[in-house]
């Protein structure tokens, strides 16, 4: 794990990269990294996240700045700008049921090719998917979903990169931390090793590549 300043961390992300971002309606989104992506004007990003938040919050800022080529998300209902850009064809949106989305990400991070889920059978969500019948029940084969980068927001990070999360800001964060080729974390507090007890570490240090330094 290396500690890097915010601007250098974001500079590692090339235009066209696929980027997983933690957060649920902006709660648990690494907001400083989002602001820096906007400042550096990254282009053609594919964002994989639960939702696109609202226009002035979290991933909504990336939508507003038109930095996205594609969004793979479960919900865009609270961001009219995402809906407008989708309707006009400016932004490709792949809507995935939330439980399927998180399991596809988990599969990638856990070394699995995909998962079988009953969710979406017989709906628009099954288009292009294989159905598999097991013991009389029908499932969809949903493939693993990885990304070039995972941008993880944590409550606590220790000097080694062990991470702990707060309340409902956990959401997608520990799951994407396993599924990004390069994992960058921004924590509310950087604390000495040992402050987070082993039992309270949710994301173990070796999966975190970079920790953003306090400014």
């Amino acid at each position, binding site marked *: 794990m290396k500690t890097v300043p915010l601007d250098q961390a974001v500079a590692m992300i090339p235009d066209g990269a696929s980027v997983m971002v933690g957060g649920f*309606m902006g709660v648990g989104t690494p907001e400083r990294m989002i602001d820096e992506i906007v400042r550096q004007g990254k282009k053609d990003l594919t964002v994989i996240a639960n939702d696109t938040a609202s226009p002035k919050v979290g991933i909504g800022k990336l939508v507003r700045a038109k930095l996205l080529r594609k969004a793979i998300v479960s919900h865009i209902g609270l961001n009219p700008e995402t809906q407008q850009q989708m309707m006009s064809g400016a932004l490709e949106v792949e809507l995935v049921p939330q439980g399927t989305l998180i*399991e596809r990400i988990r599969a990638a991070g856990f070394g699995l090719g995909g998962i079988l889920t009953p969710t979406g059978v017989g709906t628009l969500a099954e288009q292009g998917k294989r159905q598999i019948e097991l013991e009389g029940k029908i499932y969809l084969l949903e493939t693993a979903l990885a990304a070039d980068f995972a941008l993880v927001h944590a409550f606590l990070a220790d000097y080694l990169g062990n991470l702990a999360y707060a309340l409902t800001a956990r959401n*997608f964060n520990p799951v994407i931390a396993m599924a990004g080729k390069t994992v960058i974390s921004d924590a509310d507090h950087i604390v000495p090793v040992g402050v987070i007890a082993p039992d309270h570490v949710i994301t173990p240090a070796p999966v975190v590549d970079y920790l953003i330094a306090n400014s």
Partner: protein
Amino acid sequence: MDAPNIIARRIARELSSGMLVNLGIGIPTLVANYVPPGIHVFFQSENGLIGTGPIPEEGMAHPTLTDAGGRPVTALPGASTFDSAVSFGLIRGGHLDLTVLGGLQVDQSGRLANWMIPNKMVPGMGGAMDLVSGAKRVIVAMQHTAKGKAKIMKNCTLPLTSMRAVDLVVTELAVIAFPQGRATLIETGPGVTAAQVAAATEAELLMPTHIPEMPQ
């Protein structure tokens, strides 16, 4: 009492102690206001919380303690937090006793459409498909009609949320169940007749000989 509160109060009668319950946005959220005395249930927010409590007092909101709509909530004693994979494991894995969701349309076999209106409103399914496919029991909370048009129809014209039939639809006019896959009027709303329900419903409704009024 207005329609949303009539609906929420009736659904709250389906709660029993120890249940794990997920309430959707809108009318379903109101169910929490009518939990009968002596009944203790766990409310789940699918963003990663069991033990969701009421809206915090002014000035007491915490930015990382929110519901699935991103609004501040409180956590009751005994609450737990977890990531989204665990949250949907609870939902799909047979651990969620009841989900209450809003609806746009329900067909006469009980299948729900509630996540999009093509070319008009495409909010995304969020957790709805997982909730309807995975919860042990599914109740739809919705007004009986929309701008005078029936929402309980022979066939949904909107894309379905799941092939799995819901267990109960509660509106301000009726409680409808789906035994053997057929819409059946089991209660009427306060002061509502079965004929009024039928007139506001496009689906073919089975009418048992005795149809009680929704308990007050």
